[in-house]
């Protein structure tokens, strides 16, 4: 957001690239982003892609941010308009003073009616048709070619691009040369015909060492590997599929016994989400750490089993990579719309532990934590990512691992313990913390018990007796009280004394933090709390009690976080004001700044979401 006083916009601008999906633009965009990252400059990439394999419009947004902001700013400084179908809209999106780059092979004079932006025409198709053979190659290279144009305009290091290409195509060196040729074509044309670099450009920094660019699905999958998960069951659904793909990929690298070739994991593609969660329950019940990944529609299908797991107290880990609902919604767009359905999934009095990571880094650590919590509390743990976290590449701190970590398997009675006791009762609250002891099949006949979703007594036997039934149900409430002590604490920013505050969760974090800086620059200080888990603990209660005006920022239409806070804390409902963003694009800092300032300074209540 900041503009340097000399008017230059070094390392602080947004490039948006409009292409057609299935044309190889993803490689060009990754190449651009990674080369900026390797130059030590903080960068963010967001992919807005269709639920389609080939032929529909797709956009990629790269934000170069010297200050390390990770959210969308809400504006576009350079538009690379490669898609004729969306051209009119793309031209409109460019901020005044910005640039439009288009393929001038076919002139589009009628559409260039903006005098507040600079238009840069590059005959990309012509350049590629003259230099490459084959229709497919020409299409692919046209996209690599615009990366070359941007390299010249932004002053990117071409050698760094070559280095990245060499890594990507280590096994196909011929492709390095072809790609470099395309880069050079674009680079040279831009250098020859335009003043390079632009005032918007990059300059080497040293702000990315100790960092990685990774998506949340990959990071969460890695967490599952490190947590010791052995049974992965799933049904393909966007945007969670890449989490399972990554798990398989890491497992193939780290879990195959070099001597025997045996696989220390089972990877099961289920027939549907119902079966996927069933397998996860069966495996966890039998003592293996097991998980699944899905999205909102999958959570709906899994709900019956989640209720069984809650009541019969079977651990399970479920990643819900949220996408736009309701129903099929927009499968490739992001939202935080399963907060309520995850917290209360299933019929009857049912509640689930939920974790809300804000980025890939936290997705890694929370994946590990999810298994510990699931086994410690003997209940499902739902980790709510969203498409933005799960599928976009985020710059985060290098992931760390402490080799002294050992899984918290919770209360398990093994063979020796069972030998010593007279009788085992599955649901007897011996420690008075609401958590009972469990056993695994095949260990000892004394440990055998009958798991059921029907009414059961604290001794594990069937019941239709009111008192016996209530005893177990009430203990589950005590277990949830215990759970609060184990939940990750909220993250609080600010001195805590401000009158107004923002409460948010998950992927809103980057946008909120940037918005707080902008608001601060206007002389207003707001405190901020990011909740990281459900159920909410006392720190959440305290923060809510300590502030008079609380903006609840979330990415859904129905204010689901606000609803949860209202239902599950002592907060006065009237204190909570919603800022709701549900366009399917990740929330921008501008949306939050406009919403908060509009309300605080002008009394303009902005409860509905916009598209900013």
């Amino acid at each position, binding site marked *: 957001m900041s503009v340097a006083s000399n008017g230059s916009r070094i390392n602080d601008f947004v490039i948006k690239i409009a292409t057609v999906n299935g044309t190889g633009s993803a490689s060009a965009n990754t190449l651009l982003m990674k080369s900026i990252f390797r130059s030590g400059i903080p960068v963010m990439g967001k992919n807005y892609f269709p639920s389609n394999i080939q032929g529909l419009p797709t956009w990629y947004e790269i934000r170069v941010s010297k200050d390390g902001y990770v959210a969308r700013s809400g504006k576009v400084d350079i538009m690379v308009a490669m898609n004729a179908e969306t051209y009119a809209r793309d031209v409109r999106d460019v901020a005044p003073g910005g640039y439009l780059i288009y393929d001038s092979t076919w002139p589009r004079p009628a559409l260039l009616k903006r005098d507040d932006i600079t238009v840069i025409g590059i005959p990309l198709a012509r350049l590629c048709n003259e230099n490459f053979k084959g229709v497919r190659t020409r299409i692919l290279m046209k996209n690599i070619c615009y990366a070359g144009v941007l390299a010249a305009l932004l002053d990117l290091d071409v050698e760094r691009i070559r280095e990245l290409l060499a890594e990507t195509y280590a096994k196909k060196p011929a492709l390095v040369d072809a790609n470099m040729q395309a880069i050079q074509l674009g680079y040279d044309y831009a250098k020859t015909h335009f003043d390079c670099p632009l005032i918007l450009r990059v300059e080497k920094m040293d702000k990315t060492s100790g960092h990685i660019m990774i998506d949340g699905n990959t990071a969460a999958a890695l967490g599952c590997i490190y947590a010791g998960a052995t049974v992965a069951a799933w049904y393909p659904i966007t945007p969670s599929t890449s989490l399972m793909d990554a798990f398989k990929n890491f497992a193939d690298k780290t879990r195959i016994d070099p001597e025997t070739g*045996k696989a*220390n994991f089972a990877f099961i593609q289920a027939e549907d989400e119902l079966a996927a969660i069933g*397998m996860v329950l069966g495996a966890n019940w*039998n003592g*293996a750490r097991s998980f699944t990944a899905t999205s909102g529609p999958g959570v709906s299908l899994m709900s019956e089993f989640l209720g069984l797991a809650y009541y019969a107290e079977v651990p399970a880990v479920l990643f819900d990579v949220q996408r736009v609902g309701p129903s099929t919604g927009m499968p490739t767009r992001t939202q935080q719309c399963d907060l309520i359905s995850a917290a209360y999934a299933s019929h009857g009095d049912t509640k689930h532990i939920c974790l809300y990571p804000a980025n890939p880094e936290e997705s890694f650590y929370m994946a590990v934590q999810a298994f510990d919590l699931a086994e410690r509390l003997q209940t499902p743990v739902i980790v709510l990512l969203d498409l933005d976290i799960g599928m976009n590449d985020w710059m985060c701190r290098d*992931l760390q691992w402490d080799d002294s970590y050992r899984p918290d398997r919770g209360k398990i009675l093994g063979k020796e313990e069972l030998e010593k006791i007279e009788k085992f009762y599955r649901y007897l609250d011996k420690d008075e913390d609401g958590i009972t002891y469990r056993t695994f*099949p095949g260990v000892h006949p004394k440990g055998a018990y*009958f*798991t059921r979703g029907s009414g059961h007594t604290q001794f594990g036997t069937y019941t239709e007796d009111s008192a016996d039934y209530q005893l177990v149900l009430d203990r589950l409430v005590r277990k949830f009280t215990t759970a609060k002590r184990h939940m990750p604490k909220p993250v609080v920013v600010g001195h805590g004394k401000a009158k107004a505050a923002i409460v948010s969760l998950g992927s809103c974090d980057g946008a909120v933090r940037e918005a707080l800086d902008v608001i601060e620059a206007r002389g207003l200080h707001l405190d901020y709390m990011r909740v990281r888990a459900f159920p909410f603990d006392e720190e959440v209660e305290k923060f809510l009690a300590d502030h008079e005006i609380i903006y609840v920022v979330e990415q859904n239409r129905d204010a689901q976080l606000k609803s949860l806070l209202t239902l599950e804390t002592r907060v006065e409902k009237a204190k909570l004001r919603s800022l709701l963003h549900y366009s399917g694009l990740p929330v921008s800092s501008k949306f939050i700044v406009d919403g908060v300032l509009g309300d605080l300074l002008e009394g303009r209540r902005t409860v509905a979401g916009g598209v900013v």
Partner: protein
Amino acid sequence: MTFIPKPKIAHPSLPKNDLGLTRRDYEGSLSTLCAGCGHDSITAAIIEACWGISMLPENLVKLSGIGCSSKTTAYFVSGGHGFNSVHGRMPSIAMGANAANRGLYYIGISGDGDSLSIGLGQFCHAIRRNVNMLYIIENNGVYGLTKGQFSASADIGTKAKKGEVNQQPPIDPVLLAMNLGAGFVARSFSGDKAQLVPLIQAGLKYPGFALIDVLSPCVTFNDHEGSTKSYAYTREHYEPVVEADFVPFKKEISTEYAPGEALPVMLHDGSRVVLRKLDDDYDPSDELAAHEYVQQHIARGEYLTGLLHCRPTQDSEFHALNRTPETPLNQVPFERLNPGAKQLGKLLARYR
């Protein structure tokens, strides 16, 4: 269904198996099904079968869905863990449990409603995955707990207790399982314990998915005149075509098989099932021929029983295909599962 434990008093003269356990040691809690229910006879056969092969009670995992049949897992082998899950979803619980620990016996008890309607998908996919378990369908053609609606196994023309006649064709689990490539497919009758016990033993030992469809009349809702799943009708129309003997490993040496008469099928642990054909025209090892033969008899209104199809399928068993180690996954030490901090640095190299 109230829970009534059985007193554990055993007469000293009761016969003992190799583990020194009596049949009483393989019992469960008291059944609360209707008096005369076919399912109770199947429970008795399971107890006999497990005792007979000297199974460690804690090594049996009992899984079920919802329905009268699914309740019965509480009525046998109380020394083994039981999991009464949700309607039609037992196969997925079985798959997950089996993936976690391949070293135990898995028995799934289901009904015709549980397996052929709400759980048809999971039933089929458990077969496709060739999960090593014995899957018993206690088949009575009706929904018992909800009082007598037709199930998907009800024959065309069969009459409900209140007089309604079924018009829709049935789903036959035996034909379906053969179609899907199951390696062990049997049909039996709850009233034929002599046939059922060795089938259960063979099914438990079979290294892959084993199905036994057991005709098990519902005395309350489907045992009347006009029903094709009544005791009387079943007794009249069932025809054993293959006798199966289960031969434990240690007896193997002394057993001789006359060629042409008997067909031994080797099981994983050296024990074997010996099939004795009662009809010369029938080859139970040939999937296609078996399918056609069974179908022809169904068309004539006859229930063929016995081990109708059996062939070795070790290679396609779930763990074989997934190359999991002999050590059950739930017992692999954490150190072998966690790649460690050093390896993390390497794995992250491509993200820098």
